């Protein structure tokens, strides 16, 4: 069983997807000759020739081209180089990618997977640490997914590319070099899009997270366990559709929930998780769902990054708040 980093696992998933389906195309800025700034597309151009190509520096055209390619029957896997550079392409993503199937009454398929290196934590320049999941999750017609480990990365990327609908695939940058022993050729039981996974069982409270925050929540669960607090950690994975049944099952058991994300608080996806859990589990909940998130400030420069991101301390404080909550 090989040990693979997330970056290697994603690279392998792309390679296998290209091998299994000769309609798959991989393109974007610097994904060809260079193999991507994170080397996720390394070696693909050599293997698949014209099916892997560099584009000029224009995100809107990258996504618009993907729409046209999909209309011609291709299965595009474009990349936008960094989260914060999605905005120039947002018109294409929202008004075109997400709608062409609808607009054509199901005649034109849009099996587009947008690979988007996402989230913060790597001391990068401005616009390289953003979390856009709330924005994408709000758009009808899109699916959104983010893996938290190399094996998840491999299988979810294969699943996203195979999906007949457009999927925004948010790759957690700080996890690219995280390694795991797993065998990509080993078949996994198929789970439909919109299924979360419990990565640690517990009974006192549920932590809900995705991307790089899953590892942080596991670390928090370790710390809490030392004090006898057993936290259940749910990796939401699919940010649209959201696994409300899975969340409800966990909260029915723990009766308390804390949702953790990097994006700013206001109108972040934590609000949706909070609302959904409360709607489904109001009778069970012993405390309001707590949100531990980035602050309502622009993603800061490296020196302030650790203060911005949900820290283990802030998550533990929220756990304590929910455990000690007394109905006013």
């Amino acid at each position, binding site marked *: 069983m090989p040990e693979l980093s997330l970056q290697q696992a994603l690279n392998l998933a792309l390679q296998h997807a290209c091998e299994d389906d000769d309609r798959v195309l991989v393109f974007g800025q610097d994904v060809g000759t260079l193999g991507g700034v994170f080397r996720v597309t390394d070696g693909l151009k050599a293997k698949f020739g014209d*099916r892997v190509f560099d584009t000029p520096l224009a995100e*809107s055209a990258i996504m*618009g081209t993907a729409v046209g390619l999909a209309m011609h029957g*291709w299965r595009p896997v474009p990349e936008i180089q960094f989260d914060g550079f999605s905005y120039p392409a947002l018109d294409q993503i929202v*008004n*075109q990618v997400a709608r062409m199937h609808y607009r054509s009454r199901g005649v034109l398929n849009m099996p587009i997977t947008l690979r988007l290196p996402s989230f913060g934590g790597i001391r990068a320049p401005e616009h390289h640490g953003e979390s856009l999941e709330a924005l994408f999750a709000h758009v009808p017609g899109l699916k959104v997914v983010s893996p938290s480990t190399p094996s998840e990365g491999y299988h979810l990327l294969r699943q996203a590319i195979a999906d007949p609908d457009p999927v925004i695939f948010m790759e957690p940058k700080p996890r690219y070099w995280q390694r795991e022993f797993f065998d990509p050729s080993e078949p996994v039981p198929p789970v439909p*899009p919109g299924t979360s996974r419990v990565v640690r069982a517990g009974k006192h409270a549920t932590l809900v997270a995705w991307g790089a925050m899953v590892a942080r929540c596991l670390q928090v669960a370790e710390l809490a366990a030392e004090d006898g607090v057993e936290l259940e950690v749910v990796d939401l994975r699919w940010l649209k559709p959201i696994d409300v049944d899975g969340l409800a099952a966990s909260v029915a058991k723990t009766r308390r929930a804390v949702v953790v994300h990097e994006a700013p608080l206001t109108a972040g996806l934590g609000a949706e998780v909070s609302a959904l859990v409360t709607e489904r589990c109001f009778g069970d909940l012993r405390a309001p769902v707590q949100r531990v998130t980035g602050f309502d400030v622009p993603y800061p420069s490296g020196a302030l990054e650790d203060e911005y991101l949900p820290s283990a301390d802030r998550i533990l404080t929220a756990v304590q708040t929910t455990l000690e909550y007394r109905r006013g």
Partner: protein
Amino acid sequence: MLVARRLDEEAIALQRQGVFPAYAPAKGQEAAQVGSAAALDLNRDFAFPGYRDIGAAVAMGVDLVAYLATHLNTWHGGLYDPRTSRLAPINAVVGGPVTHAVGWAMGAKLDQTGGAAISYFGDGASSQGDVHEAMNFAGVYQLPVVFFCQNNGWAISVPTERQVAGGSVAARAAGYGIEGHRVDGNDVVAVFEATRAALDRARDGGGPTVIEAMTYRVGPHSTSDDPGRYRTLEDEQAWTDRDPLAVAAKQLSADDVAAAEEHAAAVVREIREGLQASAAPDAAELFSFVYREPTKALLEQQRAWKESLDA
């Protein structure tokens, strides 16, 4: 062309009667639309329209009742099948669909079908970043695509001279190292020939072409618009001599013209009847086509919606 004109008139009448909530007249642009679309090879080419390209739909033999469903407010993109019609769904984002033509052309090139794409857009659209990105992509990859700009003098109330710096969309082509041509957009034969030449070149690997068809939007921007606020009747009058139908009629016998009128009247009658027979959309379609398979959340919303109807 005559069908396009008469249908356009019918659509305006239908809007006045309250059948259509609004309509964007194409009057004056028939030669540009029909001439260019008639040059397409419907077995392998594909067209990407905006919202004012009914003449292209007519020339391509698109189901016009289904096309007009967009104005009936039945379905935004129209009800025609874009795959068999070779016409993408009606697109209301100015500039947005131009890159789709580029992507489609790239797909055709990769598949070596010999097909070419044509993108319809306006002088106003030429200001959008997407149009530039599209031309640059097409130039870099040498794609079989024709950028067909109908310069009809106006983008709602803004005249071309305050819209297009330099004054010519065709002149932009040189900056991308691609062919660019201005044609008299009211001369259907000139438009047809320029477009056919560009499509042929595209098929032969000659790369993209920009065609700027100089024409005039004789009517209002839409039936909700009031052109009196930004242009004079004389401005409009100046173009009546150049009416594309009049130009074309000169090359035809009176008999031919009469026959064309008769044909157009028959087509319009058929479409009027088709529209009258059009069913209102099934309200349950509100939840259709969002994904290939509806998500659980959507099914749940649909269920709640049905319950509220029954309540």
